[in-house]
């Protein structure tokens, strides 16, 4: 008897909880009046969202809680609700593709220019002619046909162990392939999009052959089989597994500001180099946004895009996540400024997307796991 009662009790409990959840579900399927969504931050003023100014639907591959704060701010200022689906860049693009014309998404935000380019080449985006956007974003950080726009920049830099490496020896990406760094180079796997984009940029700037030679040199100099994330490479440098590592700037920023003091200690022992200053410049990637071809709230969507490039929003983007703002009128966070100005690759980022496939093939060919 008792066991049955327990079972029934548990089912009842779950059903009640499920019923509570149900109201959320209905709220979403008709997508009009979102008063009980998860997105409402506890302390945000509800007044704004009640006098509804419509909505805008966003697919985003960025996963930072600070982004949500920006969306809330936008809702507060304009009364336009921001509905969000977070996911993997690639999967969101696949979803958009399947949904076709009927898709409810108005905007696609990804953490890599190559992906935006791919969405464009699949005819998933549309042109947005906005003076505000063109003014706020430098030309090479947006699509030539105005189908996507950069929002934040991140540089892929070299970090080194201050105790064992003389920074003079390592001024370019090519220096990583020098004999003296045999078994000293730490870099993550070829499945990582940042590495793919780095190699794609080299194909664009130096040609395929040089890029392949470089990739081969990296593989020859690897301290260990590629594994882990960017932070793991940094830790491995200090742990003595190698001397130099390739990582994105914002991971270093986050390590320096980590709650875990050991991570801070590691980051403090690292020196940072912006490679190729005398030649082609440091590899820079963006996270960016584009309006979907199927957008049903075009005005709201454009307003949202413009909002994200305003000085106030850019400051917050940059400050919170240690990324570089794209808006030239906005200064980078203090930490990033302390690393100094740097010369970035002079490259339209569309090229990253165009060369992505070739980059992966090269990585496979040279045995970059």
């Amino acid at each position, binding site marked *: 008897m008792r066991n049955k009662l327990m079972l029934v009790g548990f089912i009842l409990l779950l059903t009640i909880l499920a019923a509570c959840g149900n109201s959320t579900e209905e709220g979403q399927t008709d*997508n009009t009046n979102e008063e009980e969504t998860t997105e409402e931050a506890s302390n945000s003023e509800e007044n704004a969202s009640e006098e509804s100014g419509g909505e805008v639907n966003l697919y985003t591959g960025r*996963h930072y809680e600070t982004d949500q704060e920006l969306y809330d701010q936008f809702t507060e200022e304009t009364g336009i609700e921001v509905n*969000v689906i*977070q996911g993997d860049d690639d999967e969101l693009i*696949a979803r958009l593709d*399947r949904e076709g014309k009927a898709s409810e998404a108005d905007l696609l935000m990804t953490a890599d220019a190559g992906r935006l380019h791919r969405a464009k080449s699949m005819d998933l985006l549309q042109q947005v002619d906005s003076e505000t956007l063109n003014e706020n974003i430098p030309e090479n950080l947006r699509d030539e046909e105005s189908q996507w726009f950069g929002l934040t920049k991140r540089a892929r830099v070299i970090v080194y162990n201050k105790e064992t490496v003389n920074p003079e020896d390592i001024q370019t990406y090519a220096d990583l392939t020098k004999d003296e760094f045999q078994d000293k180079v730490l870099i993550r796997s070829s499945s990582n999009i940042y590495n793919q984009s780095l190699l794609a940029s080299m194909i664009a700037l130096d040609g395929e052959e040089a890029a392949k030679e470089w990739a081969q040199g990296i593989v020859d100099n690897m301290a260990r089989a590629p594994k882990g994330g960017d932070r793991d490479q940094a830790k491995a440098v200090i742990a003595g597994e190698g001397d130099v590592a390739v990582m994105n700037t914002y991971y270093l920023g986050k390590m320096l500001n980590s709650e875990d003091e*050991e991570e801070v200690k590691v980051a403090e022992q690292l020196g940072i180099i912006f490679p190729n200053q005398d030649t082609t410049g440091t590899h820079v990637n963006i996270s960016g946004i584009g309006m979907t071809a199927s957008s049903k709230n075009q005005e709201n969507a454009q307003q949202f895009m413009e909002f994200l490039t305003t000085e106030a929003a850019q400051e917050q983007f940059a400050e919170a996540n240690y990324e570089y703002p794209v808006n030239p009128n906005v200064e980078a966070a203090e930490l990033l400024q302390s690393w100094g100005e740097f010369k970035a690759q002079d490259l339209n980022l569309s090229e990253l997307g165009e060369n992505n496939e070739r980059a*992966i093939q090269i990585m496979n060919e040279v045995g970059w796991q």
Partner: protein
Amino acid sequence: MKLIRKLPGYINIWTWLSLIIVVLILLPNVSILINFFTQEADNWEHIQEFILPDLLKNTSLIMIFTGILAIFLGTSLAWLVSAYDFPMKKFFKWALILPLAIPPYIAGYTYNGILNYTGVIQTTLRNQFGISVDQKYFDILTLPGAVFIFTLFLFPYVFTITRAFLANQSASLIENARLLGRNAWEVYFRIVLPISRGAIVGGTSLVLLEVLNDYGLVQYFGVPTFSTAIFQTWFGMNDINSAIKLSATLMFIVFAVLIIEKLLRGRKKYSNTTAKVRPLNPIQLKGRKAWTAFSYCLFIFSLGFLIPFIQLLDWMFLTFDKIASPEFTTLIQNSLLVSFIGAAMISVFAVIIANFSRMHQSFFSKSAARVTILGYSIPGAVIAVGISTVFIDIDNLLFSFYESIGMEPTLFLSTSLFMLISAYVIRFLAVGYNSVESGFDKIGNKFTEASRMLGMNMTKTFFKVDLRMIKGPLISGFILSFIEILKELPLTLILRPFNFDTLSTQAFQYAGDEQIHEASLASIIIVVISGIAIYIFHQVLEKEPN
């Protein structure tokens, strides 16, 4: 005359229901598989030349070792807690299922966080004792490391299913063997392993399919496998056809393994011949033996649950102020909602197909049983594409219907929870099915036949006899699929409606971006809910035999 009398028994409601379910499962998969034979894949040669050999090597190594180790851990622990009494055995009976509550990729991040240079072990050695260690002894980001994680966090599949089977299975066989003077090892190898073969195979195939499907862990550990290659060719090279060829290759391997197993098993069937199913009487262990058994259980429990759980707790306290918010109640509700509905539907479908398949020895019924596993063997992201294609097509067909009832023609179904839950059912049907099937295996057909002989029809027999006899396995199938859905990732991420976040998407949002500390709160809640589910259902299971 004979034919007419036969018909109602062969084509009845069960057949139709099974047919419908099979079609539902096949639809999304077929839409993908068709491409395998029709489309040219640009990069297929490149893949064959440069990456396929490595993939096959890594994937088979991981599968072989994880399989063997999971069988070893799962059956030995199941046997210990079923056949012996020792300190805290009651606790271990359910606590040893708890590792399932931690998704392998979270476990991977956590273990790396414990062992790496800034982890608690090395930090303590360095700061307290001034000892610097060689990194290679602390490097878990390797193929053996992946096997370690997979084994520890997936072996409970083998453990639960085998234990549910042993708990009230042929006590007579085991006791006879003991009476005839067989020692513990002989009983284990000559009785326990052979009779639980069905359960072991069921559990192990779940483990292996889960391994094949994993993306997060192998990607982080830098061990290229089929799933990483599928993602890379699909998304990186923009070559979905090669990706599908890879998935299909993977599926053929899975089917080959399953068929070989079926053939090897041949006609050996072990089911009860008597109605007197009684639980196994455990032997009381004393002294050193008792403590050995206890330590073994505790050791595995610590590695598979306690240690990572404590580490997650520690990280949770580090980041609690930054992360915690009232939003979490919504996340919990959402997670419970989809997990519960999904698991309930899986249980119903699993019973229908399993019952059909055992009553009808036809080609269709056998294939129906195999089809359930289809969704489990294909990477989640690939399934997601198949499912959303089908739903969007249905929506397009329904546009005029939507208009006629005064709605705007939008993607109604494919932006609703309905699609997500269907996806869960297709994905995890195998989990519920395996458990139910092993239950049916256990009772055999004799009781059903007796009941039919006594004049009850199929459906009546089902409710009055069969369902009651498989209640235990059915419930364990429900728990397992409930937990699976609770921690599921790629499907939830890609198929959910707007603003619908769950605990696992929240955890991923951080962990996917190397913010494992921030991911700990959501992970802990997943673990706690799964833990409660495991405990409650364990209680139900325990009282089962009477």
